[in-house]
């Protein structure tokens, strides 16, 4: 039977609210008697906090309260995979990147909060800053966390990589690098929080890609049951992976509990770029073997993913990239190792493609290089190696259905009128 609505260009259900300016994003939510927060951030990318003095800031008219780590000894670290991220860095603890939070300023206005942040005095004991993941991996590099700077190592082994390269007539071996990217959703991190004295529930209006997991992480960090954290999703102004991690949530919750008044926290663009997650820059060393007839025989890959100061989704991102190292092509012999490495850079997490975007730059550059060396049309080269039903991925997952890769190659070539012999 013909479908009535599936497959049709139905207008977006929320578009009318958005074109009229009626849609409420986190920063558009206001309450009477609302207080504004600003965060005092790290003053050095890698240092022990030796002293923090909020005295001058607290004297400023309009400052209601300044929360430091000393005020919240019961609060635990947070994080998507590993709980390695402090809510506030305390005296004697380390700041590991410029986005680490040292204090929450709560004030009657945004302006006062911003002024107060500048009046907070901080003394630190500076440590070597590790900005390069290759330096972080060296034996004598100082540790950013308690254990190794190599946070995770993942492996990939399929077939016999030695045999694969023996079978190859041509081998291409290259190193690829990708850059640190910001997602730049147009809406920066923002939110509003209210503490309900009667029920003990903290209500948060904060954009998140992951409502219940964000709730669970906030609850474990604050030592509360999940029912005490209620997140209400406002309209979300773009995410692309950047709104998976906790940003304003915990600071809002703490300030709401402390003041019993509505509180709002909105990042500046600069703060969003420095403090909130990034796309991992990858170093990818890839070696690909192919026969004279243009059939892939082996793919060997080493990946170093700089996850910055905290894990976030890093351990999952870097190896997912590696798992996609052959692209959609049949390769019987695959070998790989992926390192997720801490540095003092802004932490990296999920961003559109989750490591496979970086990897595609490497494997599709390799395919192009090999096609040129073989003198085979790049469309033909891809077609003759592409997956079919029954093909097996680098993880040896056998593809049983929905494998339209060859149709995409042919489809694009037909549309672009790609002719034999043309590059």
């Amino acid at each position, binding site marked *: 039977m013909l479908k009535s609505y599936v497959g049709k260009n139905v207008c977006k259900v929320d578009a009318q609210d958005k074109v009229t300016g009626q849609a409420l994003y986190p920063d558009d939510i206001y309450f009477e008697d609302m207080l504004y927060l600003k965060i005092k951030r790290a003053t050095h990318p890698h240092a022990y906090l030796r002293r923090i003095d909020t005295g001058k800031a607290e004297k400023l008219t309009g400052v209601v309260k300044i929360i430091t780590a000393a005020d919240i000894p019961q609060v635990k670290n947070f994080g998507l995979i590993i709980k390695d991220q402090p809510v506030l860095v305390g005296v004697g603890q380390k700041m590991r990147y410029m986005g680490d939070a040292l204090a929450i300023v709560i004030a009657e206005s945004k302006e006062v909060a911003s002024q107060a942040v500048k009046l907070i005095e901080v003394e630190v004991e500076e440590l070597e800053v590790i900005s390069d993941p290759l330096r972080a991996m060296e034996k004598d590099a100082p540790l950013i966390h308690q254990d190794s700077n190599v946070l995770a190592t993942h492996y990939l082994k399929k077939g016999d990589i030695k045999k694969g390269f023996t079978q190859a007539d041509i081998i291409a071996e290259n*190193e*690829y690098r990708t850059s640190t990217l910001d997602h730049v*959703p147009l809406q920066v991190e923002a939110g509003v929080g209210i503490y309900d004295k009667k029920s003990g529930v903290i209500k948060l209006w904060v954009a998140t*890609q992951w*409502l219940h997991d964000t709730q669970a992480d906030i609850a474990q960090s604050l030592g509360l049951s999940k029912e005490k954290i209620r997140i209400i999703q406002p309209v979300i102004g773009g995410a692309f992976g950047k709104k998976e991690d906790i940003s304003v949530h915990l600071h809002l919750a703490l300030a709401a509990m402390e003041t019993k008044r509505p509180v709002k926290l909105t990042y500046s663009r600069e703060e969003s770029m420095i403090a909130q997650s990034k796309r991992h820059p990858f170093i990818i060393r890839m070696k690909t073997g192919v026969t004279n007839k243009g059939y892939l025989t082996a793919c060997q890959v080493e990946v170093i993913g700089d996850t910055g100061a905290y894990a976030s989704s890093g351990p999952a991102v870097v190896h997912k990239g590696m798992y996609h190292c052959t692209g959609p092509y049949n390769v019987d012999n695959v070998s790989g190792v992926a390192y997720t490495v801490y540095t003092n850079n802004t932490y990296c997490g999920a961003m559109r493609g989750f490591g496979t975007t970086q990897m595609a730059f490497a494997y*599709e*550059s390799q395919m192009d290089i090999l096609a040129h060396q073989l003198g085979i049309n790049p469309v033909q080269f891809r077609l003759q190696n592409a997956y079919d039903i029954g093909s097996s991925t680098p993880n040896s997952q056998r593809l049983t259905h929905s494998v339209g*890769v060859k149709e995409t190659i042919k489809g694009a070539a037909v549309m672009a009128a790609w002719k034999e012999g043309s590059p």
Partner: protein
Amino acid sequence: MKKRGRGIATIMFGFGYGEGFPDHSIASAEIEEEGKILIRTAAADVGQGILTTISQISAEVLKVKPEAIQIIPGDTHLTKNSGSSSATRQTFFTGNAVKEASEGLLSNIYHYASIEFRSNHVELGIKGGYIFRKDNPNNQLSYWELAERVKARGDNLKAESSFFPHTDKPDPETGQGEKLYVAYTFVTQIIDLEVNTDTGIVEVLKVYTAADIGKAINPKNVEGQIEGGTVQGIGMALMEEQIIKEGITLNPDLTGYLIPTSMDTPHFITRLIENEDSEGPYGAKGIGEPATIATAPAIANAIYDAIGVRIYDLPITPEKILKALKEKVKFTSEGWLGL
């Protein structure tokens, strides 16, 4: 001088969390007052349009207009876990959960209507929010009238579903496993561009995209994902880099960190390949992330085609192109290349 080039890239993307990580979506469907059907899901609409997708799926199952589908905004205390709007998973996971919940609701509608009409399911038909006896279509009940009668019986018209497909945890030593991801999306892009060899500036002219997405629940929204993802890919390929030196970001604003503007938008030619052969709702697969992946390599390959130099580190800025062109001339004149 301006030189034209063409590049191709083909990619795959295993979507859903996969790798044995618990991944599920819960959704419910219930008859609301005033001609509405209420869907509860925590799926976040970050702009991609999952709420629209859900309304189309539920409307299709229940044979009502999409406007009749009301979706409660995400709220931890009013909706159950639908996982994240990431991993290209919402259309597949929450789409399936909503489809199953809507089918469950429909089966309840048939059940209670068959009691009201003293008939069997096969003798009943539905249209536009009404259920009726096929032998006497005038004898009909709206879903909402039926809901009132069911309520009077002390029951209610609702259904919930959890979509929770299995994946395997890979072997830690080898990364091998039988089913790592629920399915793969495939995309090929061919990109035509122009390189100005005097300035190093690259202009992306045309982007041909063919995407194997199983089935487009909303073709225009799928195109929107492809176009938006591609332009993000253009940013990654040609201009975007947060420069962090000794832990300090040197360009923390949109003057120092450039993203594509309308002036960077190419001409798009897109074909959706719909074999309707996936386990997603109506055969759909996800497109969010795959939409951006092929662009950077296709651009790098097109730049090589245009000027014969290959850049191995992103972004491929004008400075890198000019430097590479200079070195190429040097190598060639010294007889290392171009023999």
